[in-house]
């Protein structure tokens, strides 16, 4: 298996190539390339300020990258021919034979969410605080409902087609509220929920947008160990039942190692390691990067190393 190319290189859902993001004189991300495998849980880790959130903002269109190419693919094993045609055509996306490819650096942020189906959460939670949990999940289904409401005209008349679509949207919201254990608080304002619940609701909201790729920015930040374990379960459920690929940022290595198939390590905007969790954990470069940064994490890495050596 070692010699074969890893799964994420064979069938990626997202490819980032030579991504560079510069803020004035600061190069936040420098020549970064990686693949996110279809159906994988991929973790992007690195010390504070390494540029992880910046990568997310480039992928989801909130920043326009200084240079580089970001390709999102729908359908299994999208050929390179389609992508090259798309790049040359100057268009934002191209669909052929049930496959579609999207060049995210050319698309506006809302288009990436709507067409390329990349949903995200935010490092500092961004819920609609004055709206109920249920409403938050309905807003996430906006485009589908807009279409069903005939761009509002059929909706004002309450035509049956719209009513059916609305009921489906509510059913879907209820399904996700049950999954994240918030059904009891469906009619409470999101701003009133405890912190952990807000994090879960934000993930549920992103899932209501029917994503192919779910990007989570530090979903475990501020959670207690029990909540963290529940989060891991939720992510595994999302991947297994809904076939959604997950890309998550983590600051703390311990959390992600259990559930990630693939880990990418960033430091000062540069990729320093890329591979399965076991490989990354023992990579001397990663240990070195974490050494200078935070004691907790160094200890984590060291204890991981020790247990491995003890095992051998």
């Amino acid at each position: 298996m070692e010699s074969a190319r890893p799964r994420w290189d064979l069938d990626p859902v997202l490819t980032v190539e030579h991504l560079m993001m510069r803020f004035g004189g600061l190069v936040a991300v420098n020549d970064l390339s990686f693949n996110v495998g279809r159906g994988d849980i991929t973790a992007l880790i690195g010390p504070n300020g390494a540029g992880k959130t910046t990568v997310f903002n480039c992928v989801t269109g909130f920043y326009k990258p200084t240079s580089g190419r970001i390709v999102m693919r729908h359908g299994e094993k999208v050929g390179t021919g389609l992508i090259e045609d798309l790049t040359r055509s100057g268009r934002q996306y191209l669909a052929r034979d049930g496959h579609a490819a999207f060049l995210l650096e050319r698309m506006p942020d809302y288009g990436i969410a709507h067409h390329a189906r990349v949903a995200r959460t935010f490092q500092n939670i961004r819920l609609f605080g004055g709206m109920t949990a249920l409403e938050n999940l309905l807003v996430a289904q906006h485009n589908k409902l807009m279409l069903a409401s005939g761009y509002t005209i059929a909706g004002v008349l309450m035509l049956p087609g719209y009513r059916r679509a609305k009921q489906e949207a509510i059913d879907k919201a209820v399904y996700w509220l049950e999954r994240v254990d918030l059904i009891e608080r469906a009619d409470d304002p999101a701003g009133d929920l405890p912190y952990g619940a807000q994090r879960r609701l934000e993930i549920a909201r992103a899932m209501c947008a029917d994503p192919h790729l779910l990007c989570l920015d530090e979903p475990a930040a501020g959670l207690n160990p029990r909540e963290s374990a529940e989060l891991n379960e939720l992510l595994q459920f999302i991947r297994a039942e809904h076939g959604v690929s997950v890309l998550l940022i983590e600051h703390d290595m311990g959390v992600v190692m259990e559930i990630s198939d693939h880990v990418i390590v960033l430091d000062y905007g540069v990729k320093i390691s890329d591979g399965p969790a076991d490989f990354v954990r023992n990579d001397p470069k990663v240990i070195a990067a974490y050494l200078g940064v935070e004691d907790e994490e160094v200890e984590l890495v060291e204890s991981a190393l020790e247990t491995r050596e003890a095992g051998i």
Partner: protein
Amino acid sequence: MAEAGSVADASDLRPAGAEIEEEKRRDAVSGEPPFKQPRRRDGGLRAALRDALFAALVAAVLGFFFLGLRTEIGPGGLVLSTRWGLFATAVAIVFAGRLLLRLFVFRDARPRTVTAAAPGWAAALTALGRLLGPGLLVLALAFPFLILWLFPQRDRQYLDLAILILTYVMLGWGLNIVVGLAGLLDLGYVAFYAVGAYSFALIAQNFGLGFWLCLPLAGLLAACWGLILGFPVLRLRGDYLAIVTLAFGEIIRIILLNWYDFTGGPNGISGIPKPTFLGMDFSRGEDGVAAFLGIPYDSIHRFVYLYYIILGLALLTNFVTLRLRRLPIGRAWEALREDEIACRSLGINTTNTKLTAFATGAMFGGIAGSFFATRQGFISPESFTFLESAIILAIVVLGGLGSQIGVVIASVVMIGGIELLRNLGFLRDIFGPGFDPTQYRMLIFGLAMVVIMVWKPRGLISSREPSAVLKERKLIGADMVAQGEGH
């Protein structure tokens, strides 16, 4: 501890009391902080007196030149006259006002929990709130008949006032879509009011179309202007948006003032046709409405008709707003007010969403404008100053952003209250025969604003009703709801 029935001695009571205190505190801290602190009573009056004295001193220093002294043109040049009575009154008012404020309003500056009203009260209040809307509707529907019955001599005056109030209600509801729902602070709303009024007047003059045909056209034209103005403006955020919309309102007015050939400039447009009823007008002749209905002619009929037109238009605005709120577009407006970035991360095209809010609000403003034109029969740029925008915005803010019933209450109080001040003869006895309370409209507006903002910072009715409910409809407190751009 002390058993029931047995007499507890002092040493038993204290620990028990302390324990209860302790528990209460623990409960309070584990719930939502901060918990209520006992009010400090020591030295309250003294501090208040000192504070009031200081305020009076400031007022005395400031007022000495403004109020106490006055220069008048006398026979040999300027003469200095004094007005000590006025000066003393002003200082006394400041002293008393500050003292009362200190004693009853600013009592505790420390944060305090607003404890939920007792359940009985809360239930009664919500029940009352539910009845308020339908009650006002029935009152509005029956109003002309009530007036004709109760005040046969002054019917015209009261109907006129009611029509004015309803116009502001409609404008308030229209602006509420933009400011209250979408959270875009628009200081130039009067521009669309003007566009509607001039569209109707010009179409009626140049093409001879009637009111009912012009009404939707004027609404559409105003909506188009909403799109045209909105497109460059909506990229701006916060205060910039407010300033640029203000400028656009003024630009429209100045164009109306200066494009003499087209708009008549400062002379305005007169002879705007009155609305007809099934093609008949309200005249004394054979083909008038009175003759058709077989009732004796009375000039009041036209006012009753105008009243029902604006009532219908306002109710249409309300109905459409309430419907839109429950539709994806309305929910997107509110989400936009809450968090624009989150909206975009969910695939909502925020520019289009803002534009639809702007255009919808503008459309209702335009329709209200054409009603204004037909009611007055004459329009000129003077009716569309920034002051109008400010009044409409004040109504929306005082009523509570996003609250439909709040706009009604605010309009009735602000517009109706001030007009009714005219009738209060005793004010003349106090302030002299030249006193006209309507001249102090803006002062009263400002005072009302300050009072409301101190007492209820988010407007009279600030809670938000969810647009979709799973099990139980719960009102959302104002502290949760975001206000959007530029507030």
